[in-house]
């Protein structure tokens, strides 16, 4: 009964979405306020019904109702409750349901909280949002029904893929989806603005919080996925340039560009057309990501059972939205008024520089990801474009961007003084050179490492310089500095923190990729392997029974300078229901580095293949992304951007400093 209710609720949500898509647009066209006002209640009701539908599927998983095909294929009664719940989105149908749930949640949030939006714009945004939702409801109901029943229910489910039986599944997909789907708001704002034909600085101020929310979640989602892959796959890599990872990186790059261009539009009314285009492109890349991952054109762990009908359907959605929105853009964008003037060397200019490099880098990732598909379709030749390609294209494009990061916030709007900014960055440059020299002296190593460390320090100290300049640190009396710090808008803190986070992440990437020590060897009880400055002693081997798996555990003790400092117990799990094995790495933190030990095969002579890594600075990669997300959060908490904040008075608006 519960699955049928869930199915029915989903159909009702589709009906509501159709109403929400059509009625307000008619209202906008005819200027009928009553019709426009329909958008709000339908958006809330639509969320309610998708929520019910999602709850129904979750309930089926919790009670292990194996008469539902989806549950039978992806769950097992012996699994812990948390994995039963996460299994809901650990499969194609359920993950699409999560997708529309989040889409409806964003619509409902906009309906409930954005009180100061003009009614017509509000209605049009919700209508566009509902058009997107309609397409995905149809997709779920027509090709991927999660509530389909089995005529002969099995006694036991086929278990969730062991790799996914991890807390990572509880965190990574929801975060990532909030990010992906969050950009639908930017898309809806852009399409609505084009439909209404009016766009101004206020539009940018309204849309920015939504972009920020999506960006924060996408950042965290990608970082979480990376850490999950790092500890779960057992060979210590944290980024593989896998097409599916690229599918999430592309919207992130475009979204980051959008975040910055919306800033120019908000402050200076410039780059209007470009911002609208970026908003459309960012969500289009999110859709392309969904297509790549879900259609089965790529072979990846992320792709689910491939059904050609689904691929074609998603492709149609893709063509409809990307083609439709770009057509709308081509038709309406020329009517938008030109924005303010600015010199190439200025804050605006630096943000254009940022956009240029981010979108170009995004384009190279796009080429690297889709070129093999295009080539195979056209010529039949099968090629692989791997990490070397991306390191040779993406890497060089990031270097000028990173060097430019500290300059941007220090440049004045309209016309900046590059020489003056360079002087103010003397401290940062000094710190960078010092870091470079110290790195060469202490670590030596490849030439890239000291340069990378120097660049990372430059970005971090440069971000701090921006704050120090704004609060007149050391230039004014302490009291003035404190007063200024208290009065500094949160968005300024956010910028500095997020930029510093970028520098921290760079330090982690450089440390991990340049000083990683790897040791792969076969070991028996009593053997000792040396990894960097640590000694790894094989103490013993155990066989254990887990709930739905058997595991082989090896006990190691870690010694440093002859002193025993830790014990590690990596394991290898065999899952009987799926005839699969997973590798559980054991990690020991030292500072911001990690010692990483995982197991390979058990050899006939009783020895075990062991993989051990010493990865200095590796944790900075994820700490850096976390700091970036915190910076985004600070920016979001800025009073001007708060979604539900009352409209600021005219006087305050005029007095606002141009940040």
């Amino acid at each position: 009964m519960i699955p049928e209710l869930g199915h029915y609720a989903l159909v009702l949500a589709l009906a509501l979405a159709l109403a929400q898509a059509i009625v307000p647009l008619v209202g906008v066209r005819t200027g009928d306020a009553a019709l426009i006002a329909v958008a709000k209640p339908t958006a809330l009701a639509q969320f309610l019904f998708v929520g019910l539908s999602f709850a129904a599927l979750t309930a089926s998983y919790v009670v292990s109702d194996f008469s539902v095909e989806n549950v039978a294929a992806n769950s097992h009664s012996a699994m812990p409750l948390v994995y039963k719940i996460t299994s809901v989105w650990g499969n194609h149908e359920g993950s699409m349901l999560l997708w529309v749930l989040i889409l409806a949640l964003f619509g409902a949030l906009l309906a409930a909280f954005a009180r100061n939006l003009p009614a017509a714009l509000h209605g049009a945004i919700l209508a566009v949002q509902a058009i997107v939702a309609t397409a995905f409801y149809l997709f779920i109901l027509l090709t991927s029904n999660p509530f389909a029943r089995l005529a002969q229910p099995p006694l036991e489910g086929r278990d969730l893929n062991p790799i996914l039986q991890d807390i990572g599944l509880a965190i990574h997909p929801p975060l990532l989806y909030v990010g992906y789907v969050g950009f639908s708001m930017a898309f809806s704002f852009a399409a609505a603005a084009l439909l209404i034909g009016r766009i101004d600085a206020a539009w940018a101020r309204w849309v920015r919080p939504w972009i920020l929310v999506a960006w924060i979640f996408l950042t965290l989602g990608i970082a979480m996925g990376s850490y999950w892959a790092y500890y779960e796959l057992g060979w210590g890599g944290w980024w593989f340039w896998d097409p599916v990872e690229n599918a999430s990186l592309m919207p992130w790059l475009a979204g980051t560009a959008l975040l910055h261009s919306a800033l120019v539009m908000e402050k200076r009314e410039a780059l209007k057309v470009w911002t609208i285009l970026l908003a459309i492109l960012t969500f289009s890349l999110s859709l392309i990501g969904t297509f790549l991952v879900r259609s089965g054109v790529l072979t990846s762990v992320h792709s689910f059972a491939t059904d050609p009908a689904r691929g074609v359907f998603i492709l149609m959605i893709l063509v409809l939205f990307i083609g439709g929105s770009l057509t709308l853009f081509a038709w309406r964008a020329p009517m938008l008024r030109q924005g303010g003037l600015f010199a190439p060397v200025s804050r605006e200019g630096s943000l254009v520089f940022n956009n240029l490099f981010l979108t170009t880098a995004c384009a190279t990732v796009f080429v690297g990801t889709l070129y093999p598909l295009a080539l195979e379709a056209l010529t039949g030749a099968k090629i692989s474009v791997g990490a070397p390609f991306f390191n040779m294209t993406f890497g060089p494009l990031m270097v000028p961007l990173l060097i430019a990061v500290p300059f941007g916030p220090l440049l004045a709007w309209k016309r900046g003084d590059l020489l003056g900014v360079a002087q103010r960055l003397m401290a940062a440059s000094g710190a960078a050179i010092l870091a470079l020299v110290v790195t060469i002296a202490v670590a030596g190593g490849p030439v890239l490492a000291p340069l990378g460390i120097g660049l990372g320090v430059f970005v971090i100290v440069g971000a701090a310089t921006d704050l120090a300049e704004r609060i007149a640190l050391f230039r004014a009396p302490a009291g003035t500095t404190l007063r200024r710090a208290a009065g500094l808008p949160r968005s300024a803190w956010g910028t500095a923190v997020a930029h510093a986070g970028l520098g921290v992440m760079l330090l982690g990437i450089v440390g991990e990729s340049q000083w990683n020590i790897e040791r792969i060897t076969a070991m028996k009880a009593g053997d000792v392997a040396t990894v960097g400055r640590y000694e790894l002693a094989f103490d013993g081997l155990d066989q254990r029974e887990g709930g739905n798996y058997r595991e082989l555990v090896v006990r190691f003790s870690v010694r440093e300078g002859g002193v025993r400092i830790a014990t590690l117990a990596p394991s290898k799990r065999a899952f009987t229901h799926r005839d699969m094995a997973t590798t559980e790495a054991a990690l020991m933190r030292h500072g911001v580095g990690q010692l990483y030990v995982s197991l390979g095969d058990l050899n006939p002579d009783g020895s075990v293949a062991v993989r051990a890594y010493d990865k200095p600075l590796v944790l900075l990669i994820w700490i850096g992304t976390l700091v970036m997300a915190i910076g985004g959060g600070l920016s979001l908490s800025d009073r001007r951007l708060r979604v539900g904040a009352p409209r600021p008075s005219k006087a305050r608006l005029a007095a606002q400093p141009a940040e």
Partner: protein
Amino acid sequence: MTRKQRRFALIAGGVAVLAVAVGLVLNALNDSIVFFNSPTDVVEKKVQPGTRLRIGGLVAPGSVERGENLAVRFQVTDGANTITVAYKGILPDLFREGQGVIAEGVLDTAGVKADSVLAKHDEKYMPREVADALKKQGHWQSDYDKGQGAATPASTPAQAPAPGPQSSVAKPASTGAATQ
């Protein structure tokens, strides 16, 4: 500067960055692309020793020989032809005889000296390239069903995993430091 000059500066800057990017992409495509080949392709196209390639097929049953210090040799077959692959390191969790596999490395006279071996985290995994190559050889049905039928009696379509980590790639012991 006039509006026109500013716009020109903006466009010129954009074109310059794009040109650099195009240069980088073309250069990287020249240097870093690896072609996929089935054992039959290698024989028929007379691929020269020293070429870097990806070889895909089924691990021939009974062909896996383990040597000293994690060295391993196995045969990759597509039914018509067979190529020997030599590898040193830990094989992915799902490496098994009779299953699909892709190895990447350099072709020499003895076979392929692989520096990575790829399998996927699913028991019914068949790399798409491998499946296509086998179909071309007309060995799809027999080989695939024989290999799969025993292991997985269920006839339901393969359920691959969800949003999560990627395919497992075995990295060799010999590459030393840089993994990225």
